[in-house]
């Protein structure tokens, strides 16, 4: 059955296999047309054998019981005229029919459900792929919207950054200014200290020189006179104080 070449019923017989090379397959756009959809359910049958359309056919003329009467009549006719002979095969037929009907009634719905489940799984797999693609795309849309919102706020971002940079620059400038001031002050302090040192040393030197010269200028005569004067002054003072005390 797998060697059956094509199952497209709408193709002509000449399309089965490349018998004539002048007419090649799938060149006209007719083959690109979508395949007509399958009907949802198969044809309805009554009692598993007779299509529903037969009952509908007979309904206008014979009503609901028409086909059953026809069936019974046919059966009785065949039996009575011995067109169908009852022999041992009838028993075989009855027993096989029992087995088959029992099997279909018992396992029919579960087998049908299994077949439907196989199809459902196929559809679910494809649906999953589609859903995954949809969610990823909606996610992408949301991300894009967020990015656009971010872009709208970029002027505020730039202002903040600009402020930041200005502050940094300002801070840096002030630091350097401070440093420069400190350095200059240190140098000036050094000069001042140097001048102070000079003056002090000069002063000390001068004082030492004056003392030395004064000390050296005191002649011995002057020294004796000043000592005698001091003693006289002291005696006078002693007398006054003694008097007071």
């Amino acid at each position, binding site marked *: 059955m797998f060697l059956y070449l094509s199952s497209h019923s709408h193709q002509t017989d000449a399309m089965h296999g490349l018998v004539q090379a002048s007419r090649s397959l799938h060149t006209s756009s007719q083959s690109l047309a979508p395949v007509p959809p399958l009907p949802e359910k198969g044809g309805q049958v009554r009692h598993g054998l007779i299509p529903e359309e037969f009952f509908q056919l007979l309904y206008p003329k014979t009503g609901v019981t028409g086909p059953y009467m026809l069936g019974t009549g046919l059966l009785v006719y065949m039996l009575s005229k011995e067109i169908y002979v009852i022999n041992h095969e009838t028993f075989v*037929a009855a027993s096989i029919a029992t087995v088959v009907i029992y099997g279909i009634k018992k396992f029919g719905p579960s087998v049908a459900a299994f077949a439907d489940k196989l199809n459902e799984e196929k559809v679910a797999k494809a649906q999953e792929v589609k859903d995954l693609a949809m969610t990823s795309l909606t996610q992408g849309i949301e991300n894009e919207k967020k990015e656009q919102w971010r872009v709208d706020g970029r002027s505020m971002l730039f202002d903040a950054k600009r402020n930041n940079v200005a502050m940094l620059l300002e801070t840096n400038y002030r630091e350097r200014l401070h440093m420069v001031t400190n350095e200059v002050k240190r140098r000036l302090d050094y000069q001042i200290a140097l001048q102070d040192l000079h003056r002090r040393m000069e002063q000390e030197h001068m004082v030492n020189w004056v003392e030395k010269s004064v000390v050296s200028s005191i002649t011995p005569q002057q020294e004796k006179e000043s000592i005698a004067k001091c003693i006289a002054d002291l005696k006078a003072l002693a007398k006054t104080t003694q008097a007071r005390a």
Partner: protein
Amino acid sequence: MTVSLFDQFMSPTYLGIPLLALALTLPWIFFPSPTSRWLNNRLLTLQAWFINRFTQQILTPLSLGGHKWALILTSLMVFLITLNILGLLPYTFTPTTQLSLNLALAFPLWLATVLIGLRNQPTAALGHLLPEGTPTPLIPVLVIIETISLLIRPLALGVRLTANLTAGHLLMQLTSTAAFVLLSMMPAVAILTTILLFLLTLLEVAVAMIQAYVFVLLLSLYLQENV
């Protein structure tokens, strides 16, 4: 001419026209061909599922060289199962009850496995004639026995299928004849016989499927040894 129990096994003819070809090829119409659609109806879905499962089951123990046999083994299985099951209906002819058909299926396929084994790996193929661990004095005897066993295989395959199906059909005919005849004489016994017939039918359905499966399974086993 008298109707005997073996008339059901005669090759069917109608007005002198042999119908065997029809009996062998008409079961094909029961299997819808795969469509170009992605989702199919239930019958086609189940058919595809069954074929896939069966092929996977049969090919799992085979090495890669044996996978060339996938098509023939699966189609053989479907063919045999269909013929067997359809033969259970009344007034039908079962081609697999004919020894000629079964031997015609078994012999070439078995011979193919043997020749493949002898051609591709002759040492291993001949090595199968001596099971492992046999005591040394038994070796000559065992080689002869294994050779006979090897040569008997196609006969066994064919005759197994023929015998099972023929016996089943014959038994069903016998019991149904007994039930039919007893219906007028001793209806109670006829009821018992009918119950027997019913159980036999169940057995026959099982045997029909199992025998087809066993045929193909054994062939795949022979292939496994040789490929």
